[in-house]
């Protein structure tokens, strides 16, 4: 393992989560509950795809093998993708999509804020841009979680069901493996444990206003960092990569 290998892996993880979530959101194009929401969801998707591109670009430079953002996004299989399991979960109904977005943003905002203090200047700069974007995601998705939770009986039930289904993916946010630990020790990556209280405070506040109950989770699901995914990612990548892979070496 070269000295830069952990940093490369770490960049890919950040990129993969952003891309997969951005891709999921892009699946809503033309199907949102209102035109305003079509525009808003496209904004969220564009932010995340933009973040992914910055992280991939940096990863490619660290690796130094000439792989660009598209080589990294389109030519790796699901076993090589290292995104969080949460972000690959299917869109479901609007409650699932907004709950997924809320949970991710509730973690991403304090995490990226901590990453802005990284000793790696490039990561710090990307994080500074991404943090601002994710703060908007948190506001937007958080407001929807509150509206749906404290809306009608139906919307409440749907929002609660979404939370019940997705809560098992929260613990994975806070897992640290050897790769990440080495970067934490070097002052490059933040320790996710350090943002847990901020995350919990956001959840408590929003779920409280939404009158939603946080389910007890005995065993959280994880594996994304090791490329062990849910059944959904393979389908997502098959669709996303099909055209690019059908024309090896083509320019688009």
């Amino acid at each position, binding site marked *: 393992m070269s000295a830069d290998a952990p940093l490369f892996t770490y960049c890919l993880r950040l990129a993969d989560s952003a891309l997969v979530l951005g891709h999921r959101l892009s699946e809503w194009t033309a199907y949102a509950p209102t035109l305003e929401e079509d525009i808003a969801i496209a904004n969220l998707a564009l932010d995340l795809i933009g973040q992914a591109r910055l992280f991939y670009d940096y990863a490619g430079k660290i690796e130094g093998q000439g792989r660009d953002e598209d080589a990294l996004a389109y030519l790796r299989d699901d076993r090589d993708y290292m995104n969080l399991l949460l972000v690959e979960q299917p869109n479901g109904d609007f409650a699932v999509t907004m709950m997924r977005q809320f949970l991710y943003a509730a973690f991403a905002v304090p995490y990226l804020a901590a990453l802005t203090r990284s000793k790696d200047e490039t990561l710090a700069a990307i994080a500074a841009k991404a943090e601002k974007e994710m703060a908007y995601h948190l506001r937007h998705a958080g407001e929807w979680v509150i509206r749906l939770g404290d809306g009608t009986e139906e919307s409440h039930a749907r929002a609660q069901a979404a939370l019940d289904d997705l809560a098992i993916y929260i613990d994975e946010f806070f897992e640290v493996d050897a790769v990440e630990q080495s970067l934490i020790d070097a002052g490059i990556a933040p320790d996710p444990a350090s943002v847990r209280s901020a995350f919990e405070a956001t959840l408590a506040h929003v779920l409280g206003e939404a009158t939603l109950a946080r389910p007890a989770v005995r065993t959280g699901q994880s594996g994304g960092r090791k490329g062990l995914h849910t059944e959904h990612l393979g389908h997502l990548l098959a669709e996303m990569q099909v055209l690019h892979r059908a024309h090896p070496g083509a*320019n688009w």
Partner: protein
Amino acid sequence: MYAQALDQKDKGPAVIEDPERLARFEARCAADEKIEPKDWMPEAYRRTLIRQVSQHAHSEVIGMQPEGNWVTRAPSLKRKAVLLSKIQDEAGHGLYLYSACETLGVSREEVVEALLAGKAKYSSIFNYPTLNWADMGAIGWLVDGAAIMNQIPLCRCSYGPYARAMIRICKEESFHQRQGYEIMLTLARGTPAQKAMAQDALNRWWWPCLMMFGPPDAVSEHSSESMRWKIKRFSNDDLRQKFIDATVPQGLFLGLTFPDPELKFNEATEHWETGPIDWSEFKRVLAGEGPCNRQRMRVRRQTEADGAWVREAARVHAKKRAARQALQAAE
């Protein structure tokens, strides 16, 4: 096309207008003055505009479907982002036009209801399928291109809110047109398979795009009023010819061929001349028998139905919140 509504007769009940007011109104139109929402206007003017602006809005919204079809398969991250933001622009155009419609006294709900009920039309071009990636290029280049040809004159439409909406929208449409052409250019200069995609897209979109300008002048039903009232400013055939003259050289520059063996440049008139347009196809698609008419409407209705509980939740929550605030204020 997007201005399809102007080729229909106003079918509303005849209204006898006050001759004096009508004369003043006509004079203002003739003097190229802008008519604003609070101004007096003849009923037929209002109805024609509502029909036109709402159909334009519906076209923007339905038009999101064929392009949305390729977002998840876009072949590079950059293209994915550009396509997403293009479609986002179209949603914005829809919103903007629904607002312009509201200035004429109809709510967004009413005009959307007319679309869902099958009473209002949208541009027939969106009843064709997007079958390969090059269609994203062809739509930007040709469909947005034709839209611009139609809409630039509408920037000087007599109705102020619509004219102003058009100015803003045209700017974005010309950006879309350039992006679309750039996709075509990349494909045309790419691998043989990519070039074949581009050719296939041009083959399928060329004739439907020429039809976007509406029936030939000889049979167009638009009234002389919409010309006089400065709602419609050029004839269908004039706009179509402008589009052909602008587009053919661009296609030839791509190294592609047009699916028209009779296409030729007339040195005397300095115009490109096409073979006959198959107007029976146009009529079929307009009558609901195009490849995607049913699909587009089914998806739109399904999307509206699927979103109903969300919109209802937002309404109920806003009410609850307002009630709580009122209670707090009272304490």
